[in-house]
């Protein structure tokens, strides 16, 4: 391959990512330390007010008061994303294991069925849960049908949001878990059985360790987008239970505090980069052990 093509072939990709991604993120970093403009927007400068605002509110006489309002949103984001990831792990492991045991033909069909909903527009998938969980929705009707009390209020709860997140991201967990579970040599499970290990010993000592790479990869694929999720908190959480994604969104919409929105975006970005770096470090360490 000629040197010129090597160079020019990559120019469009680099130009696109520099222009629409790398430079803009640097600008976000700049805006997060800018001053809030009088009529929305911002004025360049160096001012840590936006970051201070995450922890403190300013009282009447300019004194700083600790206010955990935004810390609570960050904590809620981490907890909900963690819960969605944990539920995805608990669901994906048995389902992926079950798929791996089927005939070659059925495997393809089942994997196709796992990926198919992922192609359906995100907004439609979240809307569907709105119908199911909503007031006088399907769930309430079914509950009443079986003699349950006249209850309501499935919607606009943490449960509704986490259900929506699990539903949105579960294929991203099943596929990598399946990839690692499928490779498990049945002889290893038989060996554990020959050594008088029961099914649960085999699960704990053979299957789980061998599924671990898939579980970690899947967890990252689910956890990272869950941290930045916007639609589920807005529609299924009713906008009452803010998460970081929705908090950022409102700062650039109604609230019009761009520097504060940029600061929260930087916090979210930092959290994601930490997760990705930890994963990369773990991967290199494993590679070193393998060598």
């Amino acid at each position, binding site marked *: 391959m000629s040197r010129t093509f090597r160079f020019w072939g990559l120019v469009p990709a680099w130009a696109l990512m520099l222009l629409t991604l790398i430079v803009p993120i640097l600008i976000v970093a700049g805006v997060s330390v800018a001053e809030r403009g009088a009529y929305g927007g911002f004025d360049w400068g160096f001012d840590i007010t936006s970051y201070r605002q995450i922890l403190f509110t300013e009282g009447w006489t300019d004194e700083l008061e600790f206010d955990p309002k935004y810390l609570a949103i960050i904590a809620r984001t981490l907890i909900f994303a963690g819960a969605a990831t944990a539920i995805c792990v608990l669901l994906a492991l048995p*389902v992926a294991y079950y798929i791996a045991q089927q005939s070659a033909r059925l495997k393809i069909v089942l994997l196709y069925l796992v990926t198919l*909903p992922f192609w359906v527009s995100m907004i439609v998938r979240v809307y569907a849960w709105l119908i199911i969980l909503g007031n006088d929705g399907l769930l309430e009707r079914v509950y009443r049908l079986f003699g349950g009390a006249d209850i309501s209020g499935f919607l606009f709860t943490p449960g509704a949001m986490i259900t929506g997140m699990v539903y949105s991201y579960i294929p991203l967990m099943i596929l990598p878990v399946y990839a690692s579970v499928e490779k498990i040599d049945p002889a290893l499970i038989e060996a554990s059985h020959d050594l008088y290990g029961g099914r649960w010993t085999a699960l704990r000592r053979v299957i789980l360790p061998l599924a671990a790479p898939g579980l970690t990869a899947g967890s990252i694929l689910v956890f990272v*987008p869950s941290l930045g999720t916007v639609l589920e908190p807005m529609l299924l959480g009713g906008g009452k239970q803010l998460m970081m994604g929705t908090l950022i969104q409102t700062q650039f919409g109604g609230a019009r505090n761009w520097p504060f929105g940029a600061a929260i975006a930087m916090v979210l970005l930092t959290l994601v980069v930490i997760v990705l770096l930890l994963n990369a470090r773990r991967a290199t360490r494993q590679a070193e052990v393998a060598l």
Partner: protein
Amino acid sequence: MSQNIRTYPGLRPLSILFFLWLYLPIGVVVFYSFNDNRLVSVWTGFSTKWYAAALENEALMGALEISLTVALISTLCATLIALLAAIVLTRATDMKFRRVSETVVNLPLLLPEIVLAVAVLILFSQIGLTNGLLKLVLAHTAFCTPFAFLPIRARLQGMSLDFEEAARDLYAAPFTAFRLVTLPMILPGVFAGAMTAFVMSMDDFITSNLLNSGGATTLPVYIFSLIRQGTTPELNAISTLLIAASLLLATLVLILNARAMRRS
């Protein structure tokens, strides 16, 4: 009776329940879209009138047109950019900056979309770009590129270099060899990548919602505004049409992928 020690009790019912749960929401939307009643969850009879209403909705058709325009242009740009990058990154293995370049191409997949959306929003406001359509095309091209890149790269990596070398031995110019040998062989990957990019652009909500200005309201953003006004059977009909389109495209991509895998 010997029991299969590889299976676990409850695995089968749990998996069946899982698949039912996976398709329940889609089924509910499709089912209620044929409901005669104004109220979404009160079934009174079969009717296709909400489809007629949806097709006559001018705002909906306008949003669809914007979405299709943005998706077609972004897909074309993203696929070309991804194709060029994939050729260089799979064929020039000894190149400097190869790993960095790969990471850069895949960057939109690694970072949270809301952060990228905010970043382009601020950029466009700083450089004074006001054309809504152009803003959407630029942003969509960026996040679609990795979706086009990954299938093309997979196809290029799975392909033997022998054919290209044979063509070069027969004095084909590099571009001729690419056009007549490499391109036809990787075409399934290119189509799979382009269609994935197209679906991602059509489906996008976060970026399009934040950039929503200058009359450039995409279909998901319009649907969101409808949902805000309350659930209606017409919304179910629109959703069902979207579901049908997505599933059709998804099936096409999966068939292309399967065929590509069988051949290599």
